[in-house]
């Protein structure tokens, strides 16, 4: 078990570095969409929520599972959709003049 947690810590630390490398130098124009988009990605805990909601271990787990699924789905669906809505408003060239 100690080996597993160690690998997890490795994965976590390396992924943080990947995150820093990938995301540095974001133009300010994209700060809000980046935040709402990454926010949607943090809804990945939906994976855990689905397992709880589906394991059929009793009422308490059903309730916790369903609330978690609702919360995570809201986060995921709302986050990706609103990011898309914002990004479609961004355009480069002016058609005035």
């Amino acid at each position, binding site marked *: *078990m100690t080996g597993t947690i160690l690998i997890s810590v490795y994965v*976590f630390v390396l*992924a*943080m*570095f*990947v*995150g820093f490398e990938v995301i540095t*130098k*974001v*133009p*300010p*124009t*994209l*700060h*809000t*969409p980046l*935040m*709402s988009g*990454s926010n949607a*990605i*943090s*809804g*990945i*805990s*939906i994976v*855990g*929520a*689905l*397992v*709880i909601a*589906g*394991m059929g*271990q009793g009422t*308490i*787990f*059903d309730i*916790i*599972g*369903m609330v978690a*699924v*609702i*919360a995570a*789905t*809201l*986060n995921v*669906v*709302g986050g*990706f*959709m*609103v990011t*898309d*809505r*914002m990004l*479609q*408003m*961004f*355009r480069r060239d*002016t058609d*005035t*003049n």
Partner: protein
Amino acid sequence: METRVLIMQLAYLVSAVLFITGLKRLSHPDTARGGNRLAAIGMLLAIVATLVGEQILTWQWIIGGLLIGTVVGGFMARFVKMTAMPQMVGLFNGFGGLASGLVAAAEFLRYSMGVAGTAEVPVDASISIMLGTLIGAVTFSGSLVAFGKLQGIVTEKAVRYPAQQFLNAVLFLGILAVMAYLVVMTPDAIVGSDTGTVNIIYYALWGAAMLLGVLLVIPIGGADMPVVVSLLNSYSGLAASAAGFVLNNNALIISGALVGASGLILTRIMCKAMNRSLANVIFGSFGQVAGKELVKGEKRTMADVNDVQADDVAMLLAYAKQVVIVPGYGLAVAQAQHKLRELCDNLESRGVNVKYVVHPVAGRMPGHMNVLLAEANVPYNQLYEPEDVNPDIANVDACLVVGANDVVNPAARDEPASDLYGMPIIEVDRAKHTVVMKRSLNPGFAGLDNELFYLRNTMMLFGDAADSIGRILEEVKQL
């Protein structure tokens, strides 16, 4: 490893790759929309893989939860006003934190109620559960408070009371002590003697962690909201990572770490834009020092101000060569961004060169003003950052400051005693002329007076920004 578990794990890997590629593309304007879609596909893949690969025994809660979440989330995303974006992102952050915390809670109860199938809780699992609970609960309640502040349900002012930090520290240490106790105690509980008590202590831990989230956000004032929203964004990622440690699931660990990193980067950018350390934002008492003392003694009044009308401003703008627009949150509050764009289009058709200069902390979350201007159809290549314009600002004929205050306060450059000192500003006071559109002489978010308003080359145009811009536009059309 069973084949379908193997497939699930590989699908998670593909999801993680899609998230990384998606985030990479999200940080470039031309590819951002595709990047977001890529990340969404990654998420869909992870969900399908889980439903196929895990032993799902009951479907009704899953289907019900997915349906409710999709309908409500979709509805919110479709109809939220762009001005309300910060509170909605804050709310979504909170839901993400709640989901992660609940994953940890379910895992705790599986052990404590003896349905986990093992007679012993491994220490690392136990620690992960405690961390997941703490981060998830703090993110949840903290985000709700941030949402309340941004929505105007909770006061936007910094709520402070004596010994605040001391009490927070005590609460935090208490939480750590309970967590340590539960890590040590849970294995005994499984043996069967005292499950109920252990569960009650665990629920109390949830309550205390949520209280901590509230207390951490409540002392932070409206001006600092961009930092808090970024930080909570980072927390929601870390909460997902913690849930990944709980479930021993690399997809969660990786995705959470990516979000944690991106939130931290944005937090750092915001702090830099205000020239403050993160500790200062969280613990500092910004704007509490009376700003008036800075303005060399006497209290300024309307008599010291160069008060102008719309036609004066129209004349100035229409015959200028170079105009710089400084939009602030007040512009969005007045819903004047569409009118402003109309005015700028008209000026450009007269041969005036118009630049919008957006300060990184304009608005209530990072990049908020850019979104609001994009909504008003301002192309993003017309938006500039302060450092693009400041070097040549002395050659600018007219700066139009709409609903911005602290980001154009010269005290940030000149007054070492000011709370704003060191914050990068847009140096409109150095331009040939500056027009400030404001409702009144009231100080900005930071609660500090602004010397700019009393300068010789500054004109003040009082009134509602949308009305004023509309009147300027009418006047310009007649010139």
